[in-house]
């Protein structure tokens, strides 16, 4: 069963060595759907050309990037997608593809299979076509996405249904889970609706309320044993690990340490949720941006223990603080933001209820 990621195993080593191990690369913000909660904003400026992308991929390979997550927008709206993806495989990247699946037919599915991607992730918003299509705002999209899952599954690929949970579909994620089981694919639920990449908070209005968030986060169907493992790890880790690892536990997330984001225009961010450009790859080398850009170094210097506003919070050990979301909400990477506080309180409550 394909469940683990090499990133989980090697992530800490890459952080210690400063290796940019995993890249989220949005190849285009253009999309054939109009999802109500979409975080991207298509600009009028030109996207990276095939030649520019190939040059970037060569730079990433020589910097140590192994995982390459192609996303968008919709990746298959790029006519050169397979030229880029084939090139990436020649450079020995492990490819992760995120798509809405609606452009995948038999022929495209064959081409995807020939890439041997590590994983393909397809968004399904509901088990009901009507609800799904009302979120994508494209009639018939549910049918096409489910068909794509079947085509890829038939070709032996590891497919995951990504179920983004919002007000419109909160009562249906169990059914989407059962749909994933009937299709024989993996299931992932995501209650995190983020502001648009330009800071516009419009998508956040679709975010589920605290009561529903508690329902999702405490649902044994979704969380299972994984949360227990993770919680035990973080609760016990400080007693088990050496000084280096304590330092790693003080890092808010892997963004800028071993993970980074590239926009279709060549801007490098620590993460898609942390849209502060560290430089543009049409002007600077990746090596310079990763190792010397002041913005990247600033993101890398962030530590959980250096957030005075949160240091005395009783839920600190349950907090998955995201500096990017903090930045988007208040303009300050160190200030608490509502969603992080809500989630930490819920985790704490779940833990109290277990006792």
């Amino acid at each position: 069963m394909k469940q683990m990621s090499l990133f989980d195993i090697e992530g800490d080593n890459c952080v210690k060595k400063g290796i940019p191990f995993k890249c989220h690369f949005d190849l285009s913000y253009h999309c054939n759907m109009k999802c109500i909660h979409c975080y991207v904003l298509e600009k009028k400026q030109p996207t990276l050309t095939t030649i520019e992308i190939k040059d970037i991929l060569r730079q990433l390979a020589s910097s140590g990037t192994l995982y390459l997550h192609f996303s968008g927008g919709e990746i298959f709206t790029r006519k050169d997608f397979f030229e880029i993806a084939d090139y990436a495989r020649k450079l020995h990247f492990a490819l992760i593809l995120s798509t809405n699946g609606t452009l995948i037919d038999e022929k495209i599915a064959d081409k995807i299979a020939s890439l041997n991607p590590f994983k393909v992730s397809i968004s399904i918003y509901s088990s009901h076509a009507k609800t799904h299509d009302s979120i994508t705002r494209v009639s018939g999209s549910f049918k096409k996405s489910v068909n794509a899952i079947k085509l890829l599954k038939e070709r032996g690929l590891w497919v995951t249904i990504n179920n983004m949970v919002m007000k419109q579909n909160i009562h249906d994620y169990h059914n989407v889970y059962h749909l994933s089981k009937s299709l024989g694919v993996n299931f992932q639920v995501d209650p995190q609706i983020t502001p648009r990449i330009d800071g516009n908070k419009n998508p956040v209005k679709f975010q589920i309320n605290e009561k529903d968030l508690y329902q999702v986060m405490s649902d044994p169907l979704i969380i299972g044993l994984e949360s227990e493992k993770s919680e035990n790890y973080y609760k016990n880790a400080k007693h088990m690990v050496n000084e280096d690892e304590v330092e790693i536990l003080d890092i808010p997330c892997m963004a800028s340490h071993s993970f980074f984001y590239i926009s279709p225009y060549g801007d490098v961010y620590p993460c898609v949720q942390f849209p502060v450009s560290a430089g543009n790859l049409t002007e600077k080398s990746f090596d310079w941006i990763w190792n010397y850009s002041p913005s990247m170094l600033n993101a890398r210097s962030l530590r959980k223990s250096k957030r005075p506003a949160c240091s005395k919070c009783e839920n600190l050990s349950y907090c998955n603080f995201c500096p990017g979301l903090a930045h988007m909400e208040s303009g300050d990477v160190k200030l608490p933001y509502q969603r992080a506080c809500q989630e930490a309180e819920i985790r704490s409550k779940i833990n109290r209820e277990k006792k």
Partner: protein
Amino acid sequence: MMNDCIIKNDEKIAYRVIEDKTLVVNLENSTFHTLNPIATIIWNNLDGKTPITTIAKNISKEFDIDFETAQKDCLEFINDLIEKGLIILCSNQAEEIK
């Protein structure tokens, strides 16, 4: 067999050499393998041109060990990689190397 060459199973794997270690992902079954520095030297020589015997000679020289030991270690490692589906023998004889 010692004169056979080996190629990496490029269609089915992803890999990256990071400093003196190599991380290999078998994309068929998502198994992960970390190669240590000596294994990484052998891995870097699996280019479809260099015979196993030359790789063993290079390891013997580089680490100042006798050729027989280097040869035995190389063969064990290569058999292991073949078993895991990470490499392919260039010859048509993909049976276990003796």
